[in-house]
């Protein structure tokens, strides 16, 4: 089969076995079996990546689109009295995932850039040992971890946490379990909940 022709160097491919084991969502199994049952040949991805440069238009067409868009934006702005950029430029979404013993944890984050606040909604958080808190870290590309606050989840393992600072310049958001009630100034363990800031 063609996919077998594409196999990586078997030594390099062995790195697949080194990944941190994470249990897939239980619904994924049925989703795959259901799609096979329905005879799906190609499964469209729900979310396509942004591929810069895929849309190729002549410069004149690009210029025309820009002129029309700017004109429309000006008219809309005049009509509704807002000079703010589109919502898509004001906020971004990303996710965090637990690994290892915290693989039940998932979180979705909304970075409201215009406000300098990110709201993170966690689920599946295990109960904390006595005297401990979850501490949120913002990590720079040079691996400096800045504390962003602490929280304690509710009885159901859910929590909503607000990061009250801009995420600009950070590449990762991570969570560790630290001593309460105020957390620590530097993480004392390898993060097992983390996600890429976008």
């Amino acid at each position: 089969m063609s996919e077998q022709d594409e196999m990586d160097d078997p030594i390099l491919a062995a790195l697949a076995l080194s990944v941190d084991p994470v249990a897939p969502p239980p619904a994924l199994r049925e989703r795959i079996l259901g799609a096979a049952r329905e005879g799906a040949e190609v499964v469209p991805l729900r979310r396509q990546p942004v591929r810069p440069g895929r849309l190729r238009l002549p410069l004149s067409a690009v210029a025309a689109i820009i002129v029309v868009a700017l004109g429309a934006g000006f008219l809309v702005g005049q009509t509704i009295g807002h000079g703010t950029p589109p919502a898509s430029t004001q906020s971004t979404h990303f996710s965090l995932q637990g690994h290892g013993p915290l693989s039940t944890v998932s979180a979705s984050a909304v970075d409201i850039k215009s406000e300098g606040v990110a709201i993170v909604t966690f689920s599946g958080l295990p109960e904390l040992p006595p005297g401990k808190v979850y501490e949120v870290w913002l990590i720079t590309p040079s691996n400096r971890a800045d504390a962003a606050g602490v929280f304690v989840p509710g009885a159901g393992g859910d929590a909503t946490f607000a990061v009250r600072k801009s995420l600009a310049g950070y590449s990762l958001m991570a969570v560790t379990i630290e001593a309460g009630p105020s957390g620590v100034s530097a993480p004392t363990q390898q993060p097992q909940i983390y996600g890429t800031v976008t």
Partner: protein
Amino acid sequence: MRVRNAPDQEVAAALAAREEAALAELYDRYGGLAYSLALRILGDTGRAEDVVQESFLKLWNGAARFDASRGSLRAWLTTAVRNRSIDLLRGRSLHERRELALKPEVIASSPGPEEEAAGSMEREAVLAALGTLPDEQREAVTLAYFGGFTQAEVAELAGVPLSTIKGRMRLALEKLGAYLRDRGLVDV
């Protein structure tokens, strides 16, 4: 055909015969690995699910052409997952791809006791093999496999000549190969 614990060739034959039980068996064997790999590369649960679904269905639809002499179903599946994940990564910036590939060694380098206990023997062997490499060799193979970077891109990121990266990759693969072959772990 009974597929529970059957060898790859029999599972592939059952897949080709459109036996749903074979797909279920394959998922039960390797669904966790496929998802973990996609999530490791992409860092996004939704996209990881999509990649796993797409990869299993590719295998479902292409099983008739499976040749066990050229590799295991697990190797085929992880290759499909890895390649599709890298395809999706290519829409992201080099910086983000690098961060994802190398994440997140922010504090310590040794795994905790829970992680060690949870890992399979194979995983521990591969991690141990990686642990034998000097940092620059480990980074080169990690960027290549998990980030999909070419050797030229790895050289650019590291700020060293391409010939240096080629040398690091060759040495790293030789060492990994020797370590893994000793433990019968070459074909994933």
